[in-house]
């Protein structure tokens, strides 16, 4: 190699300053093409998926004006996903209402209160473990624990509590990252002028890490929207409209993903399944864009302050 390099250097000495990269090796060319090809695969996959789902799903939604704002009726033979949209919304809101305080609280405990040691290590290990457990196992646990032991049966609330455990690591981790970016001087400053610890956290730490926490919450929404295995045995497969605002949480309710799964597997209704798939992809796209916007704004703000 050294002789080859030397000759390369030699032969290129008279050229401009990029003396080493002039002569390309064939293996380099092949590998470079391979690398670009693999990146292209990722882009092509997502482009292909979106295009295919739009082609199959859009006609379904256009042909059925009530697709999004209507509900299924066997008598009239109509189909709509409004109940499932509402179920999804219910599950997102309730899960976040429980999981956000818990996750952020856990991050605050790890970052502000706990002394580094065994307890912190155990909490961090269990948080990692939670994020590695597949959703189907959360589903089994939720079905047994929240459904049978706590007596919630198959209900939206049972699904929400199951999902709370599932998205807890996402929120804890992003909140912890955000808390770590708050400069130490903020803390010393607040404590130095006489703020108590909780007052400092409430008025200084949380407001300056709100961007990171918001990113975590948006990511969590994305996970909830896409989740199905943890919900099918906990929140169930009901598609009824809301009859009672709070009572609805104790009823079985299928989210968009579960309804889509049932459309295809139980009803062999591919067209409507693709309609729901399109709605899901649009939702995921919107959530990703939101997360990107919040993250960018947050990054700019901290870099300006830093």
């Amino acid at each position, binding site marked *: 190699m*050294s002789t080859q*390099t030397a000759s390369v250097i030699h032969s290129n000495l008279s050229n401009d300053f990029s003396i080493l990269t002039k002569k390309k090796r064939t*293996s*380099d060319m092949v590998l470079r093409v*391979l*690398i670009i090809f*693999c*990146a292209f695969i*990722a*882009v092509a996959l*997502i482009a292909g*998926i979106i295009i295919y789902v739009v082609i199959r799903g859009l006609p379904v939604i256009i042909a059925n004006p009530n697709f999004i704002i209507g509900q299924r009726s066997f008598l009239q033979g109509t189909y709509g996903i409004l109940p499932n949209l509402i179920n999804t919304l219910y599950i997102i809101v309730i899960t976040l209402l429980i999981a956000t305080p818990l996750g952020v*609280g*856990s991050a605050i405990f*790890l970052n*502000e*209160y706990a002394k580094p040691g065994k*307890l912190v290590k*155990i909490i961090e290990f269990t*948080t*990692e*473990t*939670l994020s*590695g*457990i*597949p959703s*189907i*196992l*959360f589903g*089994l*646990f939720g*079905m*047994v624990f929240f459904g049978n*032991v706590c007596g919630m049966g198959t209900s939206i609330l049972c699904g929400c509590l199951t999902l709370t*455990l599932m998205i*807890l*690591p996402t929120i804890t981790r992003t909140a912890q990252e955000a808390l770590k970016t708050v400069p*130490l001087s903020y*803390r*010393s400053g607040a404590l*130095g002028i*006489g*703020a*108590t*610890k909780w007052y400092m956290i409430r008025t200084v730490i949380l407001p300056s890490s709100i961007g990171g926490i918001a990113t975590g919450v948006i990511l969590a929404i994305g996970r909830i929207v*896409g989740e*199905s295995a943890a919900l*099918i*045995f906990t929140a169930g497969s009901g598609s009824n409209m809301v009859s009672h605002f709070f009572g609805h949480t104790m009823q079985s309710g299928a989210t968009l*993903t579960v309804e*889509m799964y049932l459309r*295809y*597997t139980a009803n062999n209704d*591919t067209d409507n*399944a*693709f309609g729901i798939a399109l709605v*899901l*992809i649009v939702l995921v796209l919107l959530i*990703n864009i939101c997360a*990107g916007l919040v993250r960018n704004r947050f990054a700019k703000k901290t870099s300006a302050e830093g």
Partner: protein
Amino acid sequence: MKVKSSNPAVAPSGKTSILGVNQSRKAIERTATIIFFVCGIVAILAVAAITIYLIASGAPALGKVGILDILFGTVWSPTADDPSFGIAYLILASIFGTALAICIGVPIGLLAAVFLAEIANSKLANIVRPCVELLAGIPSVVYGLLGAIILCPLMYDIEEAIFANDPSHQMTGGKNLISAILVLAIMILPTVINVSESSLRAVPQDYRSSSLALGASKIQTIFKVTIPAAKSGILTGVVLGIGRALGEAMAVVMVCGNVANVPFPFNSVRFLTTGIVSEMGYSSGLHRQVLFTIGLVLFVFIMIINVLVNVVLKKGVEKE
């Protein structure tokens, strides 16, 4: 953390503090500490509860049917008059399916990560990265639906061509192991790409400069210096990918055919996860208990992977 001891407001004798820390404020502080402590240990409680309940609901069947009969039995006919609960083929299908999905997904994911971290300028990376994020965000049921509608007919054509003169082969309509592997390979891409990219980025710039200064080309540097230096991070990505593939249920159940067969490429197969999903709805009695046993087996696999990632691999990173 470090600010802990420097809190002047909570002086040893709260009453005498000039800052006016009174009893009620002290009570609030105390409550806040307790609340945050409780939030902190929720994760521990959750993992403990999940472990206990999965063992409690999965273990009884092991005793009733017999551990060896379940784990090494090859016949799965839970609803027969003389039911048989062998899940050996389910375990094998899960292992083979995951291994082959990793074999396809990891090289592609790693090279795509190299593209993002080393080759692409920021403009190109800003196009590719959102695509990867979107790939991660697409619900698994959508992958399953696309696999069933696009991939399976394709597989059926290939199957018909290969097994046209083989009466012993049971046609699967394309719902076979290969379809499942391809869907899984796509689904683990984002995990592998993200983890590999960040570990490639963490390699100090000096390594690259030194290698380039010695006369290595950019590509040589990537494959001989950067990737080896980032190998423990990349390995973590691979293991996380294994976890993801092993635990995926809804996408696979739509493309794998769901028959407990020997996991040959063109056979309909049943994974651990799909066994649970497809039968939990109507199972009862011992059958349902065995489904929980399947969940327990899956949980054991996943816990091994978790410990591998968190204890073994992280230690390796710290050492470096």
